[in-house]
């Protein structure tokens, strides 16, 4: 397993539970799992995205009672905020789509919304409430998943992928019947021709203000921002951490690998957040940071066997949904590796979907 983020850890955990002996190699580089929000959310950008979210959220719910307290799993629910009648129509479409996938949600009137979240500005048109959505603290959960019989964790950098073995920075080689590449953006350095691209994001966390906000709050325009193919976009997304801290997002940028916080863009993001929650203006921010999402052209992750490389499996390109969809990714990888019946149709996530028009590569 190359990568000990939430996806690598989930895959390692699933394969170890299936009886395989798993070695996880991780370089400890900054990665999406530690930078992200830890929102377990049902997105419906496409049927395949929703199917993966829906299957995965059920798996998180099943796992929740076993998670350590430090994993901070909390079923806070999501409120998708509607600013106008158009948004409300979008909300209703989303409700119908979620219902098809077996996820319950309800439209909330402005009065009810104000009662649920009194700090929201007056004049919103309502919201869609998805009660089954949750949050967790992904770095801790990933570590916990790796504390499993059958897993050894190696802090080392993989410098090359070879046939059924990897080369490490210190020159050692590790051989394995199955190699799973779950290294997010770093995977691009190990395997040519991966259609993944960095999308930079900003987050900001405040000091502790317990009890001010209880749901994950997201504007309905978030989906459009999340699925945009280019340009810089900002969308309101706010989460109350169990500490009482407020975690505020979000931005999406292409064509940059500079990890510095961009104050002007951060200001745009905060302006948007304050538009929904005016009280934020007087609240103290304590830290802002950035991270990079590993995005594919169609917004879906790449999960499954590499078409040419013997014994190589891919679990990457989850963009902003790595934490949400890690358990289903792991279930698909497990089913593939063991030749079991997959829990959901694996075809939308296969690497081959990008290969029809592109020249064959990846083979050396």
């Amino acid at each position, binding site marked *: 397993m190359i990568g000990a983020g939430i996806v690598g850890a989930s895959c390692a955990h699933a394969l170890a539970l299936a009886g395989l002996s798993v070695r996880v190699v991780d370089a*400890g580089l*900054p990665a999406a799992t*530690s930078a992200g929000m830890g929102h377990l959310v049902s997105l419906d950008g496409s049927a395949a995205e929703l199917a993966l979210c829906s299957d995965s959220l059920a798996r998180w719910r099943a796992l929740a009672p076993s998670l350590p307290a430090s994993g901070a799993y909390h079923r806070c629910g999501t409120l998708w905020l509607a600013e106008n009648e158009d948004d409300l129509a979008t909300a209703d479409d989303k409700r119908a789509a979620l219902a098809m996938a077996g996820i319950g949600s309800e439209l909330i009137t402005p009065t009810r919304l104000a009662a649920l979240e009194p700090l929201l500005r007056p004049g919103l048109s309502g919201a869609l409430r998805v009660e089954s959505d949750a949050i967790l603290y992904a*770095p*801790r959960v990933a*570590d916990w998943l790796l504390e499993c019989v059958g897993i050894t964790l190696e*802090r080392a950098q993989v410098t090359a992928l070879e046939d059924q073995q990897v080369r490490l920075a210190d020159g050692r080689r590790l051989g394995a019947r199955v190699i799973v590449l779950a290294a997010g953006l770093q995977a691009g350095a190990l395997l040519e021709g991966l259609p993944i691209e960095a999308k930079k994001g900003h987050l*900001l*966390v*405040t*000091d*502790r203000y317990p009890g001010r906000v209880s749901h994950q709050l997201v504007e309905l325009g978030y989906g459009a921002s999340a699925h945009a193919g280019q340009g810089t976009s900002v969308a309101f997304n706010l989460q109350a951490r169990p500490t009482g801290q407020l975690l505020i997002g979000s931005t999406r940028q292409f064509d940059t690998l500079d990890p510095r*916080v961009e*104050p*002007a863009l*951060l*200001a*745009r993001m*905060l*302006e948007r*957040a*304050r538009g929904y929650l005016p009280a*934020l*203006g*007087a*609240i*103290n*921010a*304590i*830290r*802002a*940071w950035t991270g990079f999402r590993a995005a594919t052209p169609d917004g879906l992750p790449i999960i499954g066997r590499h078409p040419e490389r013997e014994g190589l499996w891919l679990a990457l390109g989850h963009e902003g949904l790595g934490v949400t969809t890690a358990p289903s990714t792991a279930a698909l990888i497990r089913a593939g590796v063991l030749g079991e019946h997959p829990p959901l149709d694996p075809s939308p996530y296969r690497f081959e979907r990008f290969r029809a028009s592109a020249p064959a590569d990846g083979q050396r």
Partner: protein
Amino acid sequence: MNERLPRECELLIVGAGPAGMAAACAAADHGMSVVVIDDNPAPGGQIWRAGPRVDLPLRAQALRERFERLPGLRLCSATRVIDAPAPGRLLVEREHDAGVIDYHRLLLCTGARERLLPFPGWTLPGVTGAGGLQALIKGGLTVRGERIAIAGSGPLLLACAATVRAQRGRLVALAEQSPWQALAGFTIGLWRWPAKLAQAIALANPRYRAASRLIEALGERRLEAVVIESLGERREIACDRLACGFGLVANTELAQLLGCALDERGILVDQHQATSVAGVYAAGECTGPGGSELALVEGRIAGLAAADQYPLAAALSRRRARWQAFAAQLEQHFALDSSRLPPRRATTLVCRCEEVTLGELEAHSDWRRAKLASRCGMGACQGRVCAAATAQLFGWAPPPPRPPLSPARIDSLLLAGMEEVQE
């Protein structure tokens, strides 16, 4: 009092301690428009902190008076830098407002802070840094009749003891971890700096014990006693306060945010006090702890260099070298010896914001992993205390700073998006 924040200036100085005041005088004398921002309510920095119980040295009073009457100077007290949103621009915040200030040149005189090290009992009320206790006393805290123990390393212990004595506190222990040989070597070397020798004699204290190690602070609700080991023997000493000094750490966060290179002591500067970033200078203890005399001469050189008065600046380099040599003596003789630091205990709290213990951190190999697993350093202090402590205890490289540099209102951060001057 609370007039509007200035919008621009030729020279922006961050910090109104000795270095910042000396630099402001030098630059203003050569016609520059100078803005000084300082997070304290009054100029003077940590060493010349103003307050009801303060009896400042004449030299400090003279400099302060001259500084406060400088033509072309705007002093913004109680003002914090929270971000550097664009080249040539800082974002600052005060209690009731915030703003951006544009500059042609920037001088960092951000000083140093006390290194606080975790040891059993260090979070008990009554335990402070040695400089912290001095600041509390200058601010009006009464210690008359209180039993006070002072422990750690460096001349700050003696200065703190003198302050305590002047305020009629009862000094019950003054434990220096450096051995007698080092102290004797330091004192003998002082003939080169007669004023410092005189100061050392004035500060001499009959309770001073070398080669002494602080073991722990004891108490239920607040500090009741300290345990100090000296000559292989541990003694419990009843006390009301414990002031610890484990040296200073340069405040380099703003410099790092601007991209300035550092060395192991602080911000890296050349002979003109210029940093690795064009137009940005640094002077005083943020370039490495060295005392107020060194800060003053560095500040003057930086102020002159920022005003393009290079020959005048060069004329001061010998004086700077003299005080740099003094700083090197201090560093050599009062270096922290890890075998004389207080013993570690797994249950000792390291990060007070997030309540993380030493035991939780020891399993990790670097700051990043430790932080992600334990939340150490994720609190409102931004890891200033615990990152400096883990750098000393485990040799972990401290994390690069992230904006905002100190907790700031979201309304203030919105100003970073401001493109043009708004009048």
